[in-house]
């Protein structure tokens, strides 16, 4: 590529489109590294508590709905596939296909969030929350558990006879569960906004087989969000 055609797609401080594409993609990879380290703090907390209380984690994990988790894994994998396909499509200049594929990605992401919402609200009603939450059944002192939760929580019977220290640690498991999946959920929401923005730009005709770095970077981000879930699912749901 030559630097002769200084067109509008090329920012003034780059020599040519190739340099610009390289820089953007490189920057995205560096950002993804940051993201991994961002999650790592929570993974360290997870590892610390799991190695100290493996039995607690095994016990607590059974309260998570493996089926919903598995469906969500499948949904995210599909969305990652469509995101990757969208990159291929934009390289081939198939503008309408790109819009469709990004649209499917967004729909999958929304589906993921809907299922997540079902899981969260179910846990809230059951009182499967961290120990200090008002609605939690894992309080150290069973007398502190709200009477409404005691009546409606289906798991109350299993939990109330546990050793108080074990119950407290189960509360910590749910603290970590909500922090990890909550932070991941925020990333999915950001991904939805990102994909909608890419769709809009695509329909406006911003992308071409020569200039598609935004789609490429957006897809990279989405793969990372997917990848983190791939780790979260077995670590949280499949302990046995």
């Amino acid at each position, binding site marked *: 590529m030559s630097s002769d055609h200084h067109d509008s797609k090329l*920012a*003034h*401080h*780059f020599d040519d489109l190739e*340099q610009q594409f*390289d*820089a*953007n993609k*490189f*920057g995205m990879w*560096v*950002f993804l*590294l*940051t*993201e991994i*380290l*961002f*999650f*790592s*703090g*929570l993974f*360290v*907390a997870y590892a*610390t*508590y799991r190695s100290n209380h493996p039995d607690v984690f095994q016990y607590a994990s059974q309260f998570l709905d493996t089926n919903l988790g598995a469906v969500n894994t499948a949904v995210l994998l599909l969305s990652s596939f469509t995101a990757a396909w969208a990159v291929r499509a934009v390289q081939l200049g198939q503008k309408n296909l790109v819009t469709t594929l990004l649209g499917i990605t967004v729909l999958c992401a929304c589906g993921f969030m809907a299922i997540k919402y079902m899981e969260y609200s179910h846990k809230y009603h059951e009182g499967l929350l*961290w*120990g*200090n*939450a008002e609605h939690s059944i894992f309080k*150290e002192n069973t007398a502190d558990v709200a009477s409404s939760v005691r009546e409606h929580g289906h798991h109350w019977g299993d939990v109330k006879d546990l050793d108080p*220290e074990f119950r*407290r*640690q189960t*509360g*910590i498991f749910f*603290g*970590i569960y*909500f*922090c990890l999946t909550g*932070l991941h959920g925020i990333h999915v929401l950001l991904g939805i906004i990102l994909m909608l923005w890419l769709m809009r730009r695509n329909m406006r005709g911003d992308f071409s087989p020569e200039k598609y770095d935004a789609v490429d970077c957006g897809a990279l981000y989405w793969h990372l969000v997917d990848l983190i879930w791939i780790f979260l699912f077995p670590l949280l749901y499949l302990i046995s």
Partner: protein
Amino acid sequence: MNTHASSVNYLNHETGFKSWFMTLDHKRLGLMYMWSTFAAMLLGGSFALLLRFELFSPGKDLVSKDVYNHLFTLHGAVMIFLVIIPSIPAALGNFVLPLMLGAKDVAFPKINRLSYHLYLIGAVLLVLAILTGGLDTGWTFYTPYSTSTDTSVVIAVFGAFVIGFSSIFTGLNFIATIHKMRPPGMTWFKMPLLCWALYATSVIQILATPVLGIALLLIAAERIMGVGIFDPALGGDPVLFQHLFWFYSHPAVYVMILPAMGVLSELFSTYSRKHIFGYSFIAYSSIAIAIVSFIVWGHHLYVSGQSALVSIIFSALTYTVAIPSAIKVFNWVATMYKGSISFTTGMVSAMSVIWLFGIGGLTGLWMANLSTDMHLHDTYFVVSHFHFVMVGSALFSYLGGVHHWWPKMFGVMYDEAKGRFWTIVSFLGFNLTFLPQFLMGTRGMPRRYFDYHPQYEYLNKISTIGAAMIGLAVFMIFWNLWRSLKTGKKASPNPWGAATLEWQCASPPTPHNFDEAPAVGDPYDMSLIQFKSDEEGYLPINPCEHDPLICKVESTEA
């Protein structure tokens, strides 16, 4: 701002608030960072003076115990998050890095602007925290104190979180810039050493800062929702916070000192008019420090109850940091050997740092040592140690660097005699302030104490007098710089005779930095640059006249 520059430059080509606030120009962003750090330095410095005056004699002199606790917390938070961390990387780095690479801008100008805006938002949040209940946790936010105190921890934590992302984006930008925007001919080992230092710094920023981010978010989650991960009452572990915190905050110390080391390499070479000694060793030692910095955090937890084995491992790893640091110092001193040394403000700062970093770095040997740290941990010995490193080394290098690049930034020369004089005063004041604190520490005075036994009184009095000296000197240094904007002589493009690329463009540079692509060569070969008195600066001489052999070699290479 500058009455001397008649031609169009980056300072005068656009005017008005918006042209600065919304600018994408790395030079303007660098300047705004610089002014912001100066303002924050005055704020954090006045906190420090209040603290020192409170400690002038035992008992209450000036403020109450709680106000004192707020003051030392805010002094630490402001100085670290708003001054030192953005000082050299964001202020000088933004201005100088693209110029050194002969580039028009950093790789992502919009992200660069976002960084600055995040920094401002974070600063506003910190101020908001001060106004809505203050902050008395210490800048380390140790749990469970930080989750149980009734001050504005949540707002402050969000402020630090946002500033953290500002730092991450700056690091990301610099890494991409150094990888992808070097000019043809500038290989990695033809980069100026400041670029190596900024690169190593950026690696730390992007990898360590997010861990601080998540630790701070968890404190907020703990306070707002009571998640309990750090709360012993709920079965959590407060020491886990210390691990996460120091996983960032120890590397953060190198975010402060590594770029300072980069600046020092430039200063020693330029003002000795000599090629830097041991280029590759200095470059590699920056990378070595960055890597090792990630695996030494546990030396902050020798007495936190971590097991003896873990402490031993961390002690051994910590000691390895001494090696690359020593290599750098030896090479700087060797650079002066057979040089032609001019005592500009920049050089006087750099030589001060040899002394100050000598003390700050070598006292690290006591802190890393398992036997002595048990006595010295959390005492005034530590306070003095890290002030020698973070202020004595990092901020003195920053001010040295500001003087060095001032002519490039504004196209004017500052008053050399005054700059040098006040730098020496601040150096003396610094020693007066912090040398007695080592003694306070070994003799038994813990840090963060509002009150102390009269046996420590005379040491505290000396320390307070020294602090007043620093305060005056720093104020006068700023005043001298400020005055030069109005009265300073016009600066030539290369007043110091340095060979790095930023001195090839105009002073101040045009909006796009270089009118023609700069000639890339050895960044420390100053033999082809000579002083021209009619220009009041240095100009490149024709290499063929100087040494015909070079011409021959270059033509065959081409």
